[in-house]
Structure formats: structure tokens, C-alpha cells
């Protein structure tokens, strides 16, 4: 399965790199990559299209991995950084940087978004804690409440910000890969790499968590530590992604299910599969957003929502037929 998924991601990257208003022949692309030519086509390919495609792959992969982690953590198929208010927290963190420090994409941005994400995750966690422990239903409920509150904060910040202080904030909030520059890819890469590797290391713990807290404890897992580590790592992933490309919904919710259909629910296989599938999905969505829009560009978040739901239904039906 993994060669297929990797090929899908590579195919999506190639398709994305070959789509755009500047015509680039296969030969020109080959020359640009392997011979280092320096004409317009080469520069468009190397400094616009490829970074954007890579950014899409990183963002999609990170969102899907984070979705897998949250779904295991809460034992709830509806969990996703978006619904849990984590993305909202990250957006508030990122907007605060833009408002109070500098609007530039400094390496600090993902860190502050992570801070916002972790804080909102912590708030959700504490709010839903009871003496009997944390119930998944309560977590989701509190996530929705905190998320709604954070959305209000975002709207306040966008409305009250001095004009020009957060340029393009609305586009950014709709989810946007339009600023996929080599620098942004470089900024995001360490966060995503660190987050996914950490999650991979936690995959045995995530498998055990699916059995329930009690069973996991019996199996010798230090449940609270694994939970905290997973929560923080998933927040880091979601937060850094939001900081760079805004709020892209649906990927973290849908892709994990798709990956589960393909490779089963063991996390050692599920996490890499979800990463590849999420990357391919978002890169394709972005290609569609650019190619299909007559009005310049569409925000990719609109396309993921449009393309995501039918894809989800298809997977559900296929899954039902097989079992």
C-alpha cells in the first residue's frame, strides 16, 4: 500500500507543478530541475510551483497526522484539530504575532500558533476534566464551546485591527497556500518533521489507548503521560500548520478515515499512510483550486470542503461493502 500512496503523492506533486498560467514544457521542467537553467519557466517552477506543492504536502500530511492522533486520543471518529478548537487557538496565537509584533512570517509564528493551540487544548482538557476522568464526549463538547469562543476572538481581532496590519487575514483564515515560498516551506518543515516523528514514536501508545484507559493502563502504559505527549504533539502539528497556511478544514477529519480503510487502524502503519494521503489530497485540492477558478484563485479551504465530503462518502460505502 505504501508504494501506491507514495506514488499518489508524487503524482499529485507533479500534477500541481505542471498546472499554472505560465506554460512550462516537460523539457523546460527537466532542464530547470537537473541542469539549473535560469529562464522564466524554470524560476516559476522552482520558486513558485514546487514550494507551493511541497507546502501543500507538508500541511496536508501534518493535518492528517494530527487528526489521527486526536481521534485515537479521544476515541472519537469526529475528533479533529478544527472541531476541538485547537486550530482556533492557533489562529489566535498567529494573529497576535501579526498584530503585536510583525506581520512577517518569522520563524516565531509557528511557535506562537503552537502556544495558542496548546493553550486552547489545555483549556478544553481542564474544562472537561471531572473526578471520574476525562470523557471523550465532554471533550468534544468543550472543544466546540472553546472553538466558538475563539472564533469570536478571531473576528474581533480582524475587525478591530488597524487597517493593513493583518493584510489578507480573511484569505488566510479561509485556508490558503498562496504564499508557498521556499522560506515558508523551510519554516514549517522542522515543526512538521518533529511532530510526525514524535507521533510515530507514540504509535504503540496510541494503539493501546484505543482499548480504553483502563485496558491501556493494565497493559503497562503510563496513560496520562502518553495522553499529554500526544495532545501536545498534535497541537504542535496543527498549530504550526495554521500559522503558515491558515484554517484548512476537513483534511484532519477525513483523511484519517480514508487511511484507516486502506491500511487498517494500527498506528505504526496508519500514521505514515495518513501523512501521505493527506499530502496528496491537499496538493490535489490546491491544484483544483488554481485550475478550476476563473476568478484568479480560490482559497484551498473551500475546495477541501467541497471535495472532501463526497470522498468521505465514497470511502464509507466502499468500507461497508468490504466488511
Amino acid at each position, binding site marked *: 500500500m505504501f508504494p501506491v500512496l507514495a506514488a499518489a503523492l508524487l503524482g499529485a506533486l507533479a500534477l500541481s507543478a505542471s498546472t499554472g498560467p505560465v506554460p512550462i514544457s516537460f523539457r523546460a521542467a527537466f532542464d530547470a530541475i537537473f541542469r539549473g537553467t535560469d529562464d522564466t519557466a524554470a524560476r516559476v517552477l522552482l520558486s513558485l510551483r514546487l514550494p507551493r506543492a511541497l507546502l501543500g504536502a507538508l500541511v496536508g500530511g501534518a493535518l492528517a497526522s494530527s487528526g489521527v492522533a486526536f481521534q485515537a486520543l479521544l476515541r472519537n471518529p469526529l475528533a479533529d484539530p478544527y472541531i476541538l478548537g485547537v486550530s482556533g487557538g492557533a489562529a489566535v496565537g498567529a494573529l497576535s504575532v501579526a498584530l503585536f509584533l510583525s506581520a512577517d512570517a518569522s520563524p516565531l509564528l509557528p511557535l506562537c500558533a503552537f502556544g495558542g493551540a496548546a493553550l486552547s487544548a489545555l483549556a478544553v482538557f481542564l474544562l472537561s476534566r471531572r473526578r471520574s476522568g476525562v470523557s471523550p464526549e465532554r471533550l468534544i463538547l468543550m472543544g466546540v464551546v472553546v472553538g466558538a469562543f475563539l472564533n469570536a476572538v478571531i473576528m474581533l481581532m480582524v475587525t478591530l485591527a488597524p487597517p493593513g496590519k493583518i*493584510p489578507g487575514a480573511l484569505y488566510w483564515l479561509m485556508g490558503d497556500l498562496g504564499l508557498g515560498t521556499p522560506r515558508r516551506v523551510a519554516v514549517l518543515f522542522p515543526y512538521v518533521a518533529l511532530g510526525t516523528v514524535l507521533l510515530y514514536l507514540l504509535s504503540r501508545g496510541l494503539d493501546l489507548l484505543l482499548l480504553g484507559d483502563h485496558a491501556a493502563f493494565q497493559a503497562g502504559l503510563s496513560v496520562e503521560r502518553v495522553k499529554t505527549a500526544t495532545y501536545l504533539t498534535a497541537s504542535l502539528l496543527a498549530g504550526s500548520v495554521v500559522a503558515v497556511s491558515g484554517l484548512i478544514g476537513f483534511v484532519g477529519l477525513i483523511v484519517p478515515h480514508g487511511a484507516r480503510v486502506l491500511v487498517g487502524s494500527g498506528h505504526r502503519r496508519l500514521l505514515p499512510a495518513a501523512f501521505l494521503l493527506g499530502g496528496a489530497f491537499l496538493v490535489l485540492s490546491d491544484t483544483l483550486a488554481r485550475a478550476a477558478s476563473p*476568478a484568479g484563485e480560490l482559497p484551498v479551504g473551500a475546495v477541501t470542503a467541497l471535495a472532501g465530503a463526497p470522498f468521505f462518502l465514497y470511502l464509507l460505502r466502499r468500507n461497508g461493502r468490504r466488511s
Partner: protein
Amino acid sequence: MSGRVRIAVARRFLPGCLPVVVLLAIAVDRPAFAVDRFPLALKDDRGVAVRLAAPPHRVVSLAPSLTEIVFLLGRGGSLVGVTRFCNVPAAASAVPKIGGVSDPDVERIVALSPDLVLCTTDGNPRDKVRALEEMGIPCFAVAPQNLDAVIAAIERLGVLLGAADRGSAEAGALRRRARLARRSSRDAEKPAVLFVVSTAPIIAAGEGTFMDELVSLAGGRNVAARYSGRYPRLSVEELVAARPDVIFVAGMTGVERFPEEVTRWKEVPAFRDGAVITLDGDLVTRPGPRLVTALERVSAALADWRAGHPKAPAESSGGKR
């Protein structure tokens, strides 16, 4: 010439001349003629006939362009309420604020007891205007879609505000200036122009905007016109592919600059030649009298470009010459 002959001449010609003279007087003096006819009824751009018994003394303006026009007509003193975006001329800032263009505060407007509200169908919410009308406040809506219509609106508002003479004089002056700015571009090379209202992300003025009209009046070719929507959003690659010769940057408020990663595309002639021109945002987006100033600036910039490119490559300006 003797007195008898003079009388004879008068007798022969006067009866025939009189209707002509009267008609001429009416034609020349028509706006003034209308002013004398307060109470007046004037149809606005919604087709609603607005009736005024006397020239209005307490006017509320719901758009910066309308505020500018009222001041231009010399009736700024009658304004009792304007939007928080009305900043031109400076005196407009001193008038009490009634909210924004899209969110005027109906209660605050009613509290000012205006005898006329000036609004637009483009930016002001229709139901709020209706609410004002239901309270018996006459609302006059203006929604000019091009430069000629803006100037015509100035004339009409002159009549409405009891300043018809001033209105037709100002409109005449604006028409002359516009004609002058337009003429300078006839039969010349058509540079590819991109009019940008936001630089990060890049949002351009497309077809149907005033900026699009300014570009074509000034003899340019708007490269964003091929995208649908009035304000299409462009990727850097689309900017590179469009290869604009001249780029105008018009921030809505304050001008944001292109990020460095965009300007380093020297394939774009405008970046290569340094032909990126900053224009005051509200100069080109407000359908008011200063639109003519904007036309003059755009026209001058394109004339500069032509001066530097006497034989510019006319690869894509097919049909010209």
C-alpha cells in the same frame, strides 16, 4: 438709422424671434429653472421619486463619495451626519459620524432629524435605507457605474440640494478635465496595466470597476480584465504570466507594498523598469469628483510609459494600428 426704420424692423422680426428667445433661455437655464421649482420631485437611481418641499438644510451622507460631492457643491454646511470613512475634505471629519458605509446606525441618523439622506445602492444596506424611508425621511440613492455617470450625478445632486448652478459649473469643469486627460492617449501604444488594490495577497481590479475604466480611458489594457469577478485574486505566477508594463497600487487605506519575493520577478516589465506607481486608495475607488484627478494621474503615468517606450513590442495588443 432713423427711429421709424428701427421700429419697422422690430415689428417685422420680433414676433418670430420671441419663441426662439424664450426656448433658448429655457434650454440654457434649465437647471436654474428646475431649482426655482421647489418643491421638486427627482427620480433617483432606484427609480424612486424623491420629493423635497424646499432645499434641504439637514443632510446625512452615507458614503464618502457623496460627502465629497456635497462639499464640492458648496453645501457642506448642510451636512449633519457622515460615515466614519468620510475624510475628504478635511471639514468632513468634523461632522458627526453615523457609522460606516455598510453599517450605518439607523437610530443615530433618525436622531439627527435630517430632511434628506444621500445613499448609494452599491454599499449601503437596502433594508436600512428602507427603514429610514419608513420613518418619513426622504432618501436619494446614487449609484454611478462609470465616470460619465459620476459627473452626471454631481449635476443631479446640485439640483437636489438647491445648488444647480454650482452643480452644472463643476460638472462642466470635470468634463473638460476628463476630456483632456482622455485625449492625450488617443492613437498610442497600449501598455499592459495591472491595477492592484491589495499586494499581499495580490488582489486586482477587474472588469466593471472604476479602475478598469480609468485604465481604458487613459489608453491602457487592463490585464486583470480576463478574470471573472470584479476583484480577482491573482497568484504570483499569474502576475508573472500577465507581464504588466505598468502596475498601479491602490490600498484601500494606506498603501501596502509588494513583498520582496514578488518584486524580484524581473520578467515582469513593470518591476524591471520600476513602473510601479502608488495611488491614493480612496482616489480611485470613490465614485466622486476626485475620480477625474485619478484619471489624470493614470493618464500621465501611461504617457510617461509611452515616452520611454516609443516602439514597445505590440505582441499582444493585436488590432491596434
